[in-house]
């Protein structure tokens, strides 16, 4: 599995894991993110059961497993967190931060030891060592209980399914040419995202943040001016397309 450092400073690092060559063909490709600050790590949207071994193998190249003190699940989907039952065996003392809405649902993946820390609808934050991470509400984009993670110091927004693209294995990790990337995102956003109102509200709030990297859970990372291009494109896009069908 590919691992790339997205940000590195004296205080902390952001890593992205993805493009697992051993991934079964018919499951959707996912990006997993990890923030490492001193002897603590937060693993974000750790992925599905099928990806678990590759993910853990990649993680122990970076940090001892017991340093993963926190997990974050942006929402309840299986590609986000169906590996929970296995992480539960590996990280009995960890905490899972996830929307309060999904606790009873996520526990179906198996969680006996990890502590569930519900995130209220209005959001919240997590101190990872000296790094402050904010849980930014992104409800109905696409899940009805959904959060992004924002790091003001690194200027990174982990945006979950927002900005996602569906494309063949082996795609680059970053968007190079925004215009040619649009066809890879369009169906996903039009069909998976249900609410134009939620979309507009999220764009308004996110435009107030200083973002250098926008990191979705599928597809490629947006850097620099591509972040603004994405927000403009998304703003103009009509979502909830199944209703029109």
């Amino acid at each position, binding site marked *: 599995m590919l691992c790339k450092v997205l940000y590195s400073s004296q205080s902390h690092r952001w890593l992205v894991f993805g493009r697992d060559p051993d991934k079964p063909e018919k499951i959707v490709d996912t990006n997993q993110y990890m923030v490492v600050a001193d002897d603590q790590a937060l693993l974000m949207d750790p992925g599905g059961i099928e990806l678990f071994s590759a993910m*853990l*193998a990649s993680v*122990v190249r970076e*940090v001892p497993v017991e340093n993963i003190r926190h997990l974050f699940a942006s929402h309840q989907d299986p590609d986000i967190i169906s590996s929970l039952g296995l992480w539960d065996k590996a990280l009995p003392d960890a905490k899972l931060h996830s929307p309060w809405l999904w606790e009873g649902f996520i526990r179906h993946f198996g969680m006996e030891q990890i502590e569930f820390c519900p995130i209220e609808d209005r959001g919240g934050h997590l101190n990872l060592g000296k790094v402050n991470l904010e849980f930014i509400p992104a409800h109905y984009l696409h899940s009805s209980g959904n959060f992004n993670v924002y790091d003001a110091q690194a200027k990174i927004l982990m945006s979950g399914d927002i900005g996602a693209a569906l494309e063949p294995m082996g795609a680059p990790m970053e968007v190079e040419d925004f215009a040619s990337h649009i066809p890879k995102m369009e169906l996903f956003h039009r069909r998976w995202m249900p609410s134009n109102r939620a979309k507009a509200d999220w764009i308004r709030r996110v435009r107030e943040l200083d973002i250098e990297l926008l990191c979705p859970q599928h597809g490629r990372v947006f850097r620099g001016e591509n972040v603004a291009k994405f927000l403009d494109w998304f703003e103009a896009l009509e979502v909830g397309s199944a209703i029109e069908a």
Partner: protein
Amino acid sequence: MEAHNSNHFVIAATVAAELFKAMAVAKDISLTASNARALALRAGQSAAGFRAITDFIDGLATITVHSSKTINRLAAQMSRTASESARAEDALNRFGIVKNKAASADYIASIEPVLIRTQQQKNDLQHTFDRQAYLLHAELDAIAKELRTATVLSAMSRIEASQTSPEYSEQLNVVASNVAEAAATIQRHVQYSQSLFSNLIRK
């Protein structure tokens, strides 16, 4: 008993389902026994022997229902234990893959305590499963033994029915047949459970 596999929780769940069906039949026997008791009362002195037998029929039904409930509970617990064990085994397999994939990783040693802990959990679950299996096996044997008396009861019911006045003997014979039929049905469920169980033990 050797290591579990993922079939164990299916077998345990099937045993629970079989005994649930047996319990439903046993409840029918209980109803048959109260009808028979009313009939025997109406038949008067000539059915005094049959009246005594209805108490045994009722007793058999009570024991079967009670035992079925116990077996059902044990089988459900076993199914859960086997599921948890399968999950622990799955985790162990995946940790094994991690060890191979990341043999040279800087922090690979950090998964050793995870492996040891999960192996211990699996061993504990194995012991729990074995204990539950022993109890369930004993309960199945006990109910099978009880059901053997049902054949005797049925034969005695027929004899007693033949000694009552003709207007009641036919109906009491039907009761005897119902008891025999119900007992045979329960026996089939129990024997099937026993055969499933012996497969499970052989594994």
